[in-house]
């Protein structure tokens, strides 16, 4: 099969994935609005935290703006997984497997839609941040790096959602993962820099939690500027999540299609 035919397959499925999301307003509005709502609530309520000695910025909004980027990626996981599970439940994937379409195109197409949504979400979060007065210390180049990072984490978490869907074949099972991701988000350096977390076990858990490094990568671009260590840890963590999730998802797809 030619490269062009493969690209056409991926584009078609990515378009389908995107259109399906856009046709369900709840799948578009909720991932956009909920993280911004939480940002508003937390930045208002925790603004006093900036008075703690050693807090890295005097604006809690700037500090917390990193969170919607990660939350958006978590929602991408849910959307990707739930849509793919629906394809399995309705038999669409089985019918697709009877066509000459390449297996990897199924996954790439599905994830293409998710990554596009992740990119749009990141643009919105960044735009809202700018409107409410947050200025990126890393400048315009930092914004581009941030968007690239958002795409990478949407890909990684999207593949994780696809893996869950392919293994379970159930939308409910994929939705059941949401609380687990929420735990990862909350037991992280989401609301407080790790060095300022007082409780030992919580600081240890936040340090072991990969989500902390994703948040700190975005945060460094916003409030610090160019922090090589934070960027390396963030991109490294996101890349590992993406590679492992993609490998798991393609293995699960192979198994699922062999069964059908």
């Amino acid at each position: 099969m030619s490269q062009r035919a493969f690209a056409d397959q991926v584009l078609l499925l990515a378009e389908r994935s995107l259109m399906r999301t856009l046709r369900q307003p709840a799948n578009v509005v909720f991932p956009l609005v909920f993280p911004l709502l939480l940002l508003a609530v937390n930045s208002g309520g925790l603004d006093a935290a900036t008075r703690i000695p050693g807090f890295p910025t005097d604006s809690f909004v700037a500090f917390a703006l990193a969170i919607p980027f990660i939350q958006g990626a978590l929602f991408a996981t849910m959307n990707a997984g739930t849509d793919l599970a629906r394809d399995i439940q309705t038999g669409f994937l089985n019918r697709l497997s009877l066509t000459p379409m390449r297996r990897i195109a199924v996954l790439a197409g599905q994830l293409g839609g998710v990554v596009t949504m992740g990119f749009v979400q990141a643009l919105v979060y960044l735009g809202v941040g700018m409107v409410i007065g947050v200025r990126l210390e890393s400048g315009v180049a930092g914004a581009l790096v941030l968007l690239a990072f958002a795409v990478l984490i949407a890909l990684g978490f999207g593949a994780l959602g696809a893996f869950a869907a392919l293994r379970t074949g159930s939308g409910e099972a994929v939705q059941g993962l949401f609380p687990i991701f929420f735990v990862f988000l909350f037991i992280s350096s989401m609301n407080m820099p790790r060095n300022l977390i007082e409780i030992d076990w919580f600081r240890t858990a936040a340090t072991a939690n990969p989500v902390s490094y994703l948040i700190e990568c975005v945060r460094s671009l916003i409030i610090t500027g160019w922090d090589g260590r934070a960027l390396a840890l963030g991109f490294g963590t996101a890349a590992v999540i993406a590679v492992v999730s993609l490998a798991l998802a393609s293995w699960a797809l192979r198994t699922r299609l062999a069964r059908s």
Partner: protein
Amino acid sequence: MRTFAVARGVAWRTLHTVFTNPSLFIPGIVFPLFFFTAFAGGLSRIDSVPGFDYPPGYTAFQFVFVLLQSAAFGGVFTGFGIARDFEGGFARRLLLAAPHRTGIVLGYALAALARWLVTAAVLTGVALAVGMQIGGDGVDLVGLYSLAVILNFAAILWASGVAMRLRTMQAGPIMQMPVFLILFFAPVYVPLSLLQGWIHAVATVNPLTRVLEAGRGFLAGTPTEVATAFAVAIALAAILWLWALRGLRSAERAG
């Protein structure tokens, strides 16, 4: 008498469904514990912010919020069950069978209360196990838990009003979101005096702020705004009782 018999039947069935189904029962217990852990553990340094003055400490400060939140969400989660009953057709059969339909709303409310009492017991046990300090005496604690019970009642009335009007599980976000907003637009992380800007203005007019501050006062042993808090909570429950009853009439009309 017939109202109570209906209420008892509905409550028993709802509780049986919840307690025999881990996917319904566990999140109701785990989520408050998780919020308690995340807030009290991750944000404990907040008590060193200049002007933060709550003698029992930050764990107790957050415990009151999470207790009230669990009460409210205990009501909302039970509301999901009502919507599920409508989707499955059970609620329509219930409307046909019940001699006094107000008992249906009361039954769901009783179930929400029983369900929350289990959550509250676990949450309180965990809070005490991690060393939460209590400044108040027995009477103060009765005040705190009474406020939570009224809030639980108000939340289930809100959720049942929505569920009976829309009769679909897709109404979940409509039940959840206003409760989430009213809770989080109160002084969740710091006392009202430390909030600034728009959130201070919103929290000042948010009726739940009075309930939260009174609850924290009870736990600290320095009751404050008690009459206002109870008046607000009871008024909220009374208004939502009418909301739920009108929802019931709407479901009756829909057949």
